[in-house]
């Protein structure tokens, strides 16, 4: 694995929107190099795991507008018990400020 040098630290700092002075770059490059080396066995461990099961094959439905399945409508109504009497629309709770 290539080391984490000062140029790489500066490049990542630009991506992360961090202004670092030369002393910080020096110290952080050393830390980041040591940390990534210490954690470098993680990828080998993950690579040795059995591959995840592929997602089940699905057949997309036709691209036409259709009413939501009844079970979805029921689930939404159950989650939002307050309804507008005139229109049947659900009332969502007030969000955080």
């Amino acid at each position, binding site marked *: 694995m290539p080391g984490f040098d000062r140029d790489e630290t500066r490049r990542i700092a630009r991506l992360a929107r961090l202004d670092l002075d030369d002393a910080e770059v020096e110290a952080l490059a050393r830390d980041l190099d040591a940390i*990534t080396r210490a954690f470098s066995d993680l990828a080998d461990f993950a690579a040795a795991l059995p591959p995840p099961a592929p997602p089940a094959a699905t057949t997309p439905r036709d691209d036409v507008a259709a009413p939501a399945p009844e079970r979805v409508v029921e689930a939404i109504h159950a989650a939002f018990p307050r309804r507008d009497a005139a229109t049947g629309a659900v009332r969502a709770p007030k969000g955080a400020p």
Partner: protein
Amino acid sequence: MSAGPVANVERALSRLGDDPFNAFTHVAREAAFERARRLEAEGPQDRPLWGRVVSVKDNIAARGMPMTCGSRHLAEYVAPYDATVVARLLDAGAIVIGKTNMDEFAAGSSGENSAFGPTLNPRDPTRVAGGSSSGAGASVASGVVELALGSDTGGSVRAPASFCGVAAFRPSHGRVPRHGLADLAMSLESPAPIARTVRDLAVLLDATAGADPRDPRTAGAPRPRFAETLAKPLEGLRIGVPSALFEGVAPDVRGPVERALAKLEAAGARATPVDLPGLAHALSAYYVLNYAEFASAMQRLDGIRYGRPGPVDVPYEASAAASRASFGPEVKRRILLGTFVTSREERGRWYDSAVAARGVIAEAFARALADVDVLVGPTMPVRAFRVGERVTDPREMYAADALTVSANLADVPAGSVPVEADGLPVGLQVIGRRGEDERALAAMAFAERHAGARA
């Protein structure tokens, strides 16, 4: 603290004095007295926390109080609303005495990374209090309060509890609402209580847990029954003892924990060894995920949405970078590493590997807990270390979290209770099944009763 609200506040402030352990970032003296007088006039009205004094970690919103997250970047920020957990504490009759010190943006394990100076351990002020909820732990251990609200991302209440000799509990995700907790690593963190006794943890959890429409993770959360569960006898407790939780543990921690286990067996618990495969990779998986989520969450601290404003006459990128210059070294380190591990070139090697490892660890916990009620081991691998001893090498600091982070990865409830030990405190960690938080806390009460440290 049962003399009445005003007397409780007087006692708390008297014990706080000039805050010799640097446990608080803000003390709400006048507001606390004003609330205490109002509560006294109203009477208890069946409120379970009537007149009890609580401290709140400074990454949890309490309306009208500063919320610095331990950072100079937010030194001027005042919370405009109450976090759900704070609102519930107030509904239960509690008095918030102030905000507690913490590692900057919860990035730390010792309480030394706060922009407002390190929190000192009330049991030995030359040593760290443990972090990141350092002030919460110190505020309880020093007797200023009996109840504290902290948060736990990878051991942030269990570490201070272990180092300071108090009790703490990290609930399963979705049991205690996160609304109003500063989001810093959202898949890992939760509000979490610290108290002198397990019974007081139950009182805090009963007051704060339960569904909240502002936190979708709590949808379907059951009504909390912590105190009710503690009141029932716990018989036939089955304890799993993972050898992996004892690896690298200092002898002066291992000894008291093994003696505590023997006492639990003598009291009727059945202990059996269990395996936790993959645990050797928990620390690296945890930190890679923490870096990634932390760097993402910290993007909004750009001086425009939150934080100290940068210059206005330069492009956005330059303004944000100048604004973020006030972050401490550990915060910068985590932002850089989070940006690195999620970059297009590196994501597969680091972030995806950590996600895969997390799955293995969660599965290992589920298997280990299939035939036992709880897992038990040390909370921390060492006793409280000296202030400054580990700050020069982040890897050494991270190593202190080796035994606590796996519970957050697996999202299982976990607590720490102090056990009998000579000298500095030692914590026993009790880990339960996901969602069975009441039973995990009952097992902690069992440990406290039969092997707990006498204050």
